[in-house]
């Protein structure tokens, strides 16, 4: 029997398939859209095609309690902290950058959430910020990384507001800034927003869809904070944490 963890985020739904030894044997990612059930079912259908699934499924995220199938829900912050702690087995701080949330979580030596904060007031510096800029500038999100690698210097983005950031960028283009330098500025502004949440003191772990899809952001984090890492497929950490949490609680 295999267990499923599902993180129903605002933009993407992440699923993990976990075996009896509590190892992840498969991952699946799908757009959340407007129907949480449909998104969760896509994950379940994918995994149940070749494996016998155990219910309840373990959920977290915005749609964690909206499912019609048997589920056990968790806070995604507690789930994320749990999985990250299991992975590194030490006190750490986590910065998780997702579709519209940036979270800062500190995890104690015993693996408990010590403190957490979320982005406040606006979603600048999240996935939505990058998506909006990519859409306005007619560049695919996939092109961001290769363009940023060509940067010779950073063009600083000042605007708090995503929409006004685009007009700021248009102004920069008029003044002769290159797209690679601008994208490097966008990446750094994502980091600036996230480190505003709290002073960084411990070993830092970067997770979420943004670092997974924009590996250069992880490198830029490591430049600023040498004591830093990002696990592979980090955006699946919360989904995995759901499974681990419920094993502990015998649900």
């Amino acid at each position: 029997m295999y267990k499923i963890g599902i993180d129903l985020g605002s933009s993407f739904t992440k699923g993990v398939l976990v075996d009896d030894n509590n190892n992840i044997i498969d991952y699946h990612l799908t757009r959340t859209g407007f129907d949480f059930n449909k998104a969760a079912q896509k994950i379940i259908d994918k995994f149940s095609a070749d494996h016998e699934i155990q219910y309840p499924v373990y959920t977290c995220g915005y749609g964690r309690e909206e499912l019609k199938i048997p589920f056990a829900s968790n806070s995604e912050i507690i789930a994320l902290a749990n999985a990250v702690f299991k992975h590194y087995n030490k006190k750490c701080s986590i910065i998780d950058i997702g579709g519209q949330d940036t979270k800062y979580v500190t995890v104690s030596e015993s693996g408990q959430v010590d403190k957490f904060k979320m982005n406040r007031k606006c979603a600048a510096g999240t996935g939505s910020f990058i998506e909006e800029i990519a859409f306005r500038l007619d560049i695919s999100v996939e092109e961001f990384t290769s363009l940023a690698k060509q940067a010779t210097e950073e063009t600083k983005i000042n605007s708090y507001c995503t929409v006004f950031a685009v007009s700021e960028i248009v102004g920069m283009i008029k003044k002769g800034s290159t797209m690679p330098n601008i994208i490097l500025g966008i990446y750094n502004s994502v980091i600036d927003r996230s480190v505003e949440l709290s002073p960084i003191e411990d070993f830092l772990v970067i997770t979420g869809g943004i670092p997974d899809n924009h590996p250069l952001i992880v490198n830029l984090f490591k430049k600023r904070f040498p004591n830093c890492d990002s696990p592979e497929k980090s955006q699946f950490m919360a989904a995995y944490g759901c499974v681990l949490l419920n094993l502990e609680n015998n649900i």
Partner: protein
Amino acid sequence: MSEEIKEVAKLQSVNALRKTMDEYFLRLSTAAETGNKKIAWCTSVGPAELLYSMGFEVYFPENHGAMLGASKLADKYIPTAVAHGYSPDICSYLTADIGAFLQNETPLQKNGFKSVPKPDILVYNTNQCHEVGDWFMYYAKHFNVPILGVNTPLWINELTPSIINGIANQFKDLVPELEKVAIQKFDLEKFRETVHLSHEGCVLWRKVLETAKHKPSPINFFDSAIHMGPIVVMRGTQYAVDYYKILLTELEERIKNNISSIPNEKLRLYWDGMPLWYKLSSMSKLFAHHDTCVVASTYCNSWVFDDLDPKDPFESSAIAYCKLFIVRSDDAKQNVLEKLMTDFSIDGIIYHDAKTCARNSNNRFGLQNRLNEKNKIPYLEINGDLCDSRCYSEEQSIIAIETFIKQLSTRK
């Protein structure tokens, strides 16, 4: 899995509250229609005692603002005020209230009012913020009536004699101006009597709030935010005293019979800052569902004026109104909070950072970290607003609150 819905135990006193508030509004509407009494508009922490002692009926626009928020009408009116040149960044009580006035609408129409009661005079105190002066000035110009202000310095650290004397003198300076409008002359004995009633009402209100020290608590913040109406608008009258005797009796009975506000109190929280008026009910249910009682708050405790003393009504009014939490320095606020945390056995603090209320968002200058370093009580900051629901991201806040509750549960 869907769990059982846990209900907050309903206070029976709510019927007496409704009656008390209805009668207050009836007195106001009668004065507005018949002119049997002059009407003064007053800030919620303004010199209500002085006005009541001089025979005014007293109307409180901030109470009206809270009504607009609680009835989920504020969002309808705020844009109107913004269109007329009032920034969306200023007090949303103000913008909701002026917006409603511009649209000629008010929830008071249910109480028989044609409009808000026309003021004969407006009196404000800046001990909460300076925006009340601008707010009242709008109506003073509109109705062409006098406006008086007590200008309290903000950020009072130590309450020095010079501050107290200055404010007491400002209170005294109001008297001749009020006499020009009032039907009756100022009478020191009447003022003493009003201050005495105000003190009695405040002591009862404090005792009501202090019942929450009991484990489990018989009352929660969301109830208190509703039941504080009389202490805000009838402070200095027998009506408030009579009501809080009823409420206190019920809460003491609850303690005696071990009836708690929420069915299964496991965690006790402190709420700092303004309520989210448009989410009072859903917030109350959210916390109850997670066996968490918000037992105390900065907001409700702000109306405890123990220092009022009929022996020296002017000076004691000055002391009481300058001791107000909102007008104090962060160090003075921290001292108050430290004591409250201990008195109410608090497990965690929620700071509501209200976008349009800088003075009562107490997490903007590092106080939350300094307090946490001292007492190690975890805290959560949520962003929202008192009336402007556009500033509140509900899903994100629910996730944060539920995570915070889980985080606190692991510490128990």
